[in-house]
């Protein structure tokens, strides 16, 4: 059978420290794992958010431009209807009315064109076939959307509609048109004034129409020329095909150590692709900042939790130690109490027969080992106890016992007094008690003899001391007991009550 391991204060302390460290390590590891998981999840989220954000922006931008174009067409229809309803007889009248519709309908650079391709604006009348490519057509049957690159100017969007019903000043008019600066259109979309999001319009061949810069890689160059050596060939081909086929698409590429993401959406009827680009690091940095703040909070939490755990562990340890000490003391006290209770005679308060036997065993060991040379034993017996019990009752008998014990204890203050029977006492004397044994016995005997006359407590005592040939206490005791009987007889003769 394995021996039981003893729980010591040291083991408790070690357990508390190791336990605390394990908890701290687990909390730290869990936090680091959570943090890394958050980082990874953040990166994934950034990509998804970027794509979603760009797609939404591009689609929104494309819709805005489509609405802008549609709105201009509607306004042009209204303008033509308005002018047709006016009494226009001269060129001045026409210029005045064109000025009015420009202002009222917010139509920038609105113009009418007659069948001779003469263009009428608010301030100018000019022959316009070479200037406006859509006028190369003899007649217009439908709305026309064209991109024009005027000499020395930014690229423009030209919107034209046929005006087959319009006749003014005796001339038939074939069309009206407006010109919109493409850079102004893109400016409408560019809400991010910090330049983190770029918008640009491209022709099907990747030519930049809006004169806007799309990040450091593409800048204001041809979209596909700029990306030629930046993205893999198959990706480049796929995106080129998307442009040709008026499709949506997206692209991600590295630029100056950061990732750039772009999304493009076709703008119906224009042969344009609206491209929105964002440096992913913008979103990433934002989220990373938040993540770092969270991480810092977690680190603080770890430090706080660790400190709290250590303090708690220390407090618990101290409490445990205190509690253990108290328990130990209590146990000692209890043990002492029980020991006392086991070794003490309940009536007299002196040690009992059990205690005498324990002492006897220990002394026998010392006798055998020669540790003790001087030892005396006094054996005492109460005279007349039975007589008192029989005549005065047990309470009187008990009182007699207590008085006898008190008498013995009074004289043998420097000895160990034991009640070893109902009316028997033994006193073991060592040291000083042994040295004064005879004087004490004489004094007690004198007192007892006086008590016979005074009807007091009478105790018969005999004594002996350890002889060289004694091997055990019992030898001494028996000689003392023998002497005690001799004395008892003597006291009887002197008038003391005796057991009959």
């Amino acid at each position, binding site marked *: 059978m394995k021996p039981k391991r003893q729980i010591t204060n040291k083991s408790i302390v070690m357990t508390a420290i190791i336990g605390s460290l394990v908890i701290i390590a687990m909390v730290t590891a869990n936090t680091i794992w959570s943090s890394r998981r958050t980082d990874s999840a953040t990166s994934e989220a950034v990509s998804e958010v970027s794509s979603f954000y760009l797609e939404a922006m591009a689609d929104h931008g494309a819709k805005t431009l489509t609405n802008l174009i549609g709105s201009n067409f509607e306004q042009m229809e209204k303008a033509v209807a308005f002018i047709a309803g006016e009494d226009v007889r001269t060129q001045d009248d026409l210029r005045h009315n064109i000025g009015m519709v420009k202002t009222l309908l917010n139509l920038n650079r609105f113009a009418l064109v007659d069948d001779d391709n003469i263009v009428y604006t608010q301030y100018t009348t000019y*022959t316009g076939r070479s200037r406006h490519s859509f006028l190369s057509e003899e007649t217009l049957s439908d709305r026309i959307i064209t991109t024009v690159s005027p000499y020395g100017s930014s690229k423009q969007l030209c919107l034209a509609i046929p005006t087959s019903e319009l006749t003014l000043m005796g001339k038939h008019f074939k069309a009206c048109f407006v010109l919109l600066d493409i850079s102004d259109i893109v400016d409408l979309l560019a809400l991010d004034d910090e330049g983190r999001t770029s918008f640009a319009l491209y022709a099907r061949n990747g030519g930049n129409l809006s004169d806007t810069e799309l990040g450091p890689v593409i800048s204001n160059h041809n979209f596909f020329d700029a990306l030629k050596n930046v993205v893999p060939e198959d990706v480049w081909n796929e995106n080129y095909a998307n442009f040709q086929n008026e499709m949506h698409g997206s692209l991600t590429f590295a630029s100056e150590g950061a990732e750039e993401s772009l999304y493009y959406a076709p703008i119906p009827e224009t042969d344009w692709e609206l491209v929105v680009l964002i440096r992913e690091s913008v979103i990433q940095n934002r989220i990373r900042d938040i993540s770092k703040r969270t991480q810092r909070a977690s680190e603080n939490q770890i430090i706080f939790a660790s400190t709290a755990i250590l303090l708690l562990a220390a407090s618990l340890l101290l409490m445990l130690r205190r509690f253990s000490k108290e328990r130990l003391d209590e146990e000692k006290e209890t043990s002492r109490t029980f020991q006392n209770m086991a070794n003490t005679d309940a009536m007299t308060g002196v040690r009992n027969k059990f205690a005498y036997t324990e002492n006897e065993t220990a002394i026998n060991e010392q006798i055998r080992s020669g540790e003790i040379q001087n030892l005396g034993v006094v054996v005492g017996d109460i005279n007349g106890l039975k007589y008192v019990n029989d005549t005065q009752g047990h309470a009187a008998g008990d009182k007699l016992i207590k008085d006898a014990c008190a008498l013995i204890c009074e004289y043998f203050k420097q000895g160990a007094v034991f009640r070893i029977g109902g009316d028997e006492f033994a006193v073991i004397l060592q040291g000083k008690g042994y040295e004064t044994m005879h004087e004490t016995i004489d004094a007690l005997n004198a007192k007892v003899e006086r008590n016979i006359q005074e009807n007091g407590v009478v105790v018969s005592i005999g004594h002996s001391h350890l002889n060289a040939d004694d091997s055990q206490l019992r030898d001494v005791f028996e000689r003392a007991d023998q002497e005690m009987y001799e004395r008892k007889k003597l006291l009887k003769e002197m008038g003391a009550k005796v057991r009959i």
Partner: protein
Amino acid sequence: MKIISRKSGILSVVLAALLALSACADAPVEDPKRTASDTGGHAMSAEQLKSAVNFDHELDSYVPKKDHYNFYFTYKTVHPWWDAVALGMEDAQRQFLDKGIRITYEYMAPEGASAEDQTQRLHDALSKDYDVIGVDVADDAIISPILDEMVDSGAKVMTFSSSDASEGCKRIAYVGNTHNYQDGADLTEALCEKLGYKGKVAILVGSVGAPCHEDRAAGAKDTIAKYPDMEIVATEYDNDSVDTAYDLTKKILADNPDLSGIICCNMSNPVGAARAVTELESDAVIVGMDHDEEALRYLNDGVIYCLGVQDCYSIGFDTICIAVKIADGNMPGELFPEKTNEITTVIYQEDAAQMLELLYGVVL
């Protein structure tokens, strides 16, 4: 208003070339004129190139006397070259409008250059109350007398763009190219140098009688005449039509397979010639005029050797400014010269990309 003389323009080019050459200390210093083999020397700085066409104009301090002016302008033919002039006019018009002065005008031309058509237009304009009538002379021999009549009748007449009236015409002032002959000579000189001063060349001209075209052709012819090993095998007019220029070039090349060079005197000539040369894979060297986007692309590709780019924008802007002064009764003198010279800048392959970006926003 920026008025740059031809001499100063050429001087700046020469100085730039000299500076470029001097930067190469070990290179032999040769004729500072730009040559095809001297590729590095042809490249102009961005500033030099920007000065070829000035888009940054501001009105001068002149205070117009009226708040509304109404002009009539007519030019040779409907063509992108005059559309560029129109943009300069519109810039001036906007700037006057910002000052509260409304300028209205007609800017009209026939589909093909025609002195008769121009005569009719001028008569019509005379019957209306225009403050100033401006003319890009279609044929100086026919139009100059008409302008004199108009002036005599009290009309305020000016000439503009690239063709002035005949010497002695009573028109009040001219704004535009005053050095067409020299432009033709300069381009031809560059061609001759490129060809080593020998070979057959053809001359493409625009409209018959158009002073600018004729003057350039004259300059070209006189230059070729200086070199005995050079021969003009054809002189053809395309009437400012690219398609005609293309057809004519193909015919000339068919007739002269060993043609070494083509001198183009207007804006449509070099485009048509370049298309034909490319198609027929000819080695003929093309020199020509103006800033057509397609021509600039051919220049960038090396199909055209050099182009003389006129500052059309400034022509248009200055025309409106001087028209206002003329309308107020001013005559040439302190306020404006009788002839306002606008520059021509010869550009080469190395300059083409920058010019395309400058004029058309094309980033190659």
